[in-house]
């Protein structure tokens, strides 16, 4: 099949369109930095902290995209499992790295079970995975709240009075994670150009990136890519499509659980009833800002996204205050942008999909025209 001839203008437009979200964010960040008045040192430190804090969570989104299941809004299930692990270790008084590892061990079976459930449901809703996983997130959040608000105390023993609500059952709105606060970040903290770098957290993230690279080349990874490209062709090739899709969601959910633990060890406080809901939205928005789309994402998108998205997070309140005199405006702006960027990415994805269909039609027509010309 011959290549479709494109004019230079079309090529330029395609590049702009492909990176529209990232370019838009670059402009927003550039304007925001100028108006915020923050020093480069401050911004650098904040970005390093936030990249270390969020990257693991965002990388967990890559596998379902590879399997053609879009953005896994169901990552909140893993986040809830991670939080349950943290509640238990806080009650038992397990601190430091052992506490984190134990929380991960506790979260793993819960994440796997929830991921399996989510994968099963998503297999029944092929083509509508994103909205379905979003709603599953709300559904499981209800069950999570039921367990944490009513089950913990009378049914699931929680002894620490600092965790339990004054009425005697249910977990408090905020759990102090002082025992594991910065447990991973402080293991190998070094200073580079006056900036504190949590080296061990970055090593863990690098190991996850290596795992992702290896996983893509593995048999299961290749199967997922095949399923992501065309389910029917993959099925014809003997791949267990449904099973592969479930496995992708299970791995993503388990990694999201670990990511949430790493995220919360940096924060040092667990917002029992809200943390997991916020994290799903912000992680997906950050990935999209990095130039990923519903069906294509890479490790590069993760780091670019988390940098740009959080740069906007940092500068917008101060920029809002300096421009209009109200920091609250910046707060509204960043929430509005988080939701807006997801909408924009989804709209662009749909436009691109339609355009590629049109382009395929044009290619076919051009091929036929070329064949006729050759015959003549």
């Amino acid at each position, binding site marked *: 099949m011959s290549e479709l001839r494109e004019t230079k203008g079309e090529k330029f437009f395609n590049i702009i369109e492909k990176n529209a979200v990232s370019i838009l964010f670059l402009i927003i960040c550039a304007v925001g930095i100028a108006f915020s008045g923050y020093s480069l040192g401050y911004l650098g430190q904040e970005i390093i902290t936030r990249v270390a804090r969020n990257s693991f969570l965002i990388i967990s989104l890559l596998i379902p995209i590879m399997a053609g299941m879009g953005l896994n809004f169901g990552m909140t299930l893993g986040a809830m499992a991670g939080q349950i692990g943290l509640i238990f270790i806080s009650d*038992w*008084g*397990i*601190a*430091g790295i*052992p506490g984190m*590892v134990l929380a991960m*061990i506790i979260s793993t079976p819960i994440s796997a079970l929830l991921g399996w459930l989510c994968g099963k449901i998503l297999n029944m809703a092929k083509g509508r995975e994103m909205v379905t996983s979003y709603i599953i997130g709300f559904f499981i959040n209800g069950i999570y709240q039921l367990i944490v608000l009513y089950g913990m105390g009378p049914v699931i023993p929680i002894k620490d009075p600092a965790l339990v609500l004054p009425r005697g059952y249910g977990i408090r709105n905020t759990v102090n994670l002082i025992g594991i606060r910065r447990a991973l970040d402080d293991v190998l903290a070094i200073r580079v150009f006056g900036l504190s770098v949590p080296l061990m957290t970055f090593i863990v993230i690098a190991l996850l990136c290596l795992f992702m690279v290896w996983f893509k080349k593995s048999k299961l990874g290749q199967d997922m890519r095949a399923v992501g490209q065309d389910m029917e062709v993959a099925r014809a090739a003997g791949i267990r499509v449904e099973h592969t899709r479930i496995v992708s969601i299970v791995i993503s959910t388990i990694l999201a659980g670990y990511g949430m633990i790493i995220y919360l060890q940096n924060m040092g406080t667990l917002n029992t009833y809200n943390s997991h809901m916020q994290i799903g939205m912000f992680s997906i928005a950050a990935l999209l800002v990095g130039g990923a789309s519903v069906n294509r994402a890479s490790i590069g998108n993760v780091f670019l996204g988390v940098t740009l998205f959080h740069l906007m997070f940092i500068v917008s309140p101060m920029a809002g205050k300096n421009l209009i005199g109200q920091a609250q405006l910046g707060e509204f702006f960043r929430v509005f942008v988080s939701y807006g960027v997801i909408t924009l990415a989804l709209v662009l994805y749909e436009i691109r999909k339609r355009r590629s269909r049109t382009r395929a039609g044009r290619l076919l027509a051009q091929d036929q025209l070329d064949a006729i010309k050759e015959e003549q």
Partner: protein
Amino acid sequence: MENKRALLKRRIIQLAVIVLVILLGAVMFVVGKEHTILLDNKSIESGGVTYNAFQVVEVQVDGRDKLELGPRDRDKEVVMGQRHKVTVTYFDKYYEEHVVVKKFKVPISQKMVLISLPAVAAELDQSVWLTNYEAPTLLNIPKDEEPIVSDDLIPLDF
């Protein structure tokens, strides 16, 4: 037959991994368990003998920063794991420095233990200087107030 054997091998490996993870969890539980060690510089009576509180004593847990305690002072260290070392440094009435090092193990179920520094310095039995401590809560506040003990202090008690 071949398939069954492969399946059995797979199941055994899966089971082994689960057991290993559970064991790892148990190890993390023991290693990461936090205990509060209360360091108490109060006079203590044991076997009819009174061991007086120090005028000034330095105490160190697991090589951390030294804590300096005056008479009737109580400080705390939060530690991880079961096995620890306490180093007590004090001066006797001749201003001679003494260092006593004791190793001890905190029971896994115990959240708080209390170490009596005069008893450590007197090299008494571990059951005397290391006791379990239950933090008073609203449910178990002692009904009678503790009697006020006035300390005869060393080394100024010549």
